[in-house]
């Protein structure tokens, strides 16, 4: 039952990360910004607000999608901490995409629908994803997280030895943090995108799921490319990673939907060239 404590802890940290992210963006843009526990307060507030299902919604789907979000990311956290297969975590990443579509489509709202359509568009981020997974396997010869951690203990950290792969992964995670230049599904012109119609307790559930997601993705990046470390250092490293992303989010405009896709395809081409290069050069240094 330790894992349950970890999940609760991860949710709190993830919400806090979201708050810090907002604060940093605001400060870079010389705004005061909300307090860092703002997202936490949001969840509390939403939990006790009135909740109902829109009349036009596809009811089962509308409700089921919320526990699905939490369940898949809790599963990902479990796999991460048990050193399981990296593929499972990135399976979860893609499954998250499905929940995004489902969120938007289930309500019948035009805003939600637009969010969902854009989330389908942004499915192109799967492309750098395969590239980076294949790259990691290519380099380390395993996809079990425990093996990758062990590999780094022997051969030095992957962030340095396999920089292009790390960059591809960075783009993937960047496209999932709030306010990202790739965050076309939550652009302001479509209100809250696919989350528009989920309010009250549903929204609280979603925020919990998304907090878990942020925590897991950051921790995965740190574990994969820097290696095993004590838990407190993992938190600090994740925070630093998040801060770099906050800078990017604060300083870049949101891309137009198809440009985001094109850039992500560009990333995979770089990774493929890199992999071809190391293949011809005869393996890793």
């Amino acid at each position: 039952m330790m894992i349950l404590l970890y999940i609760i802890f991860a949710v709190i940290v993830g919400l806090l990360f979201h708050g810090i992210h907002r604060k940093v963006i605001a400060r870079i843009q010389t705004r005061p910004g909300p307090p860092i526990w703002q997202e936490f307060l949001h969840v509390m507030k939403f939990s006790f607000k009135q909740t109902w299902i829109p009349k036009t919604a596809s009811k089962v789907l509308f409700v089921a999608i919320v526990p699905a979000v939490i369940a898949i990311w809790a599963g990902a956290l479990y796999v991460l901490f048990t050193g399981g297969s990296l593929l499972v975590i990135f399976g979860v990443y893609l499954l998250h995409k499905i929940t995004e579509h489902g969120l938007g489509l289930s309500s019948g709202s035009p805003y939600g629908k637009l969010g969902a359509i854009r989330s389908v568009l942004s499915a192109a981020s799967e492309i750098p994803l395969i590239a980076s997974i294949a790259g990691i396997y290519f380099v380390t010869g395993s996809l079990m997280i425990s093996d990758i951690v062990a590999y780094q203990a022997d051969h030095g950290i992957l962030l340095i030895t396999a920089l292009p792969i790390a960059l591809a992964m960075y783009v993937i995670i960047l496209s999932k943090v709030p306010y990202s230049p790739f965050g076309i599904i939550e652009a302001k012109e479509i209100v809250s995108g696919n989350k528009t119609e989920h309010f009250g307790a549903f929204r609280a559930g979603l925020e919990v799921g998304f907090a878990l997601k942020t925590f897991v993705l950051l921790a995965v990046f740190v574990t994969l490319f820097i290696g095993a470390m004590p838990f407190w250092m993992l938190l600090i490293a994740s925070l630093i990673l998040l801060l770099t992303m906050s800078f990017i989010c604060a300083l870049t405009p949101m891309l137009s939907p198809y440009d985001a896709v094109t850039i992500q395809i560009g990333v995979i081409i770089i990774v493929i060239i890199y992999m071809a290069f190391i293949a011809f050069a005869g393996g890793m240094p």
Partner: protein
Amino acid sequence: MYEAMTASVTASMPVSESAYGFTQTDIEGQALFSLPFGDIVNFLTPYTAVLFVFALTFTIIALISKPERQVDTVMGGDAYYTKDISRETLRFQRFMAIACGLATMGGIMAGDVFNFTLFTAFIGITNIGIVAAVKNKHILDNAFEYGLLAMIGTLPLFVGAALVLATTGTLSMWILFTPEVAVPLFAKLLLVIGVIAEGMAPVFVAKAEITRAPGAPYILMVHVSSLLIFLRVIEIVISM
């Protein structure tokens, strides 16, 4: 922390020698379960089990959930209307969505490369069916493009499987996943682009337009199936 938790998990897993000589890979962990059908032996690993559960969940949702009613606002006024799906279309789409879910579960469990490609083609055709039921001309246009892609996708898929058989002499994943058997890169690439065409996982253009169609639980199955089968093919290709 990692060490402690890994140790506890591996201790709780039963380590059993399988009849097919496939106990553990570096990619997805221990095989949990196998279901032999003659030469085709289906199996689940922790990874595919996750996918399987997800596919099952969404198939059940498609089965029991009523479709949403899309709201369209009328420009230049306060009016809005909802689109209702006719009973016939609904039944058809639901049937297709469930068939799609079953095909996805089959593809996830498949332990044979050719069987996998067949399930993938199955997913392609059910996806076409789900969207083809919509009467909107724009969506039909996209469904047609999507369908064309699914059709030409059978070439890389089947040629990929045929090459696997030609170069290794087997189609069974139990054997292909062992390190002794080498599958050429060409065959792997063909399999991946074949699945991309069938499931249209990252081929986003027509698929995004298709998402405009009403019938969320069914349209969602299009995405569920394509992403899951995509995840599966990556696992297969990396394991081979």
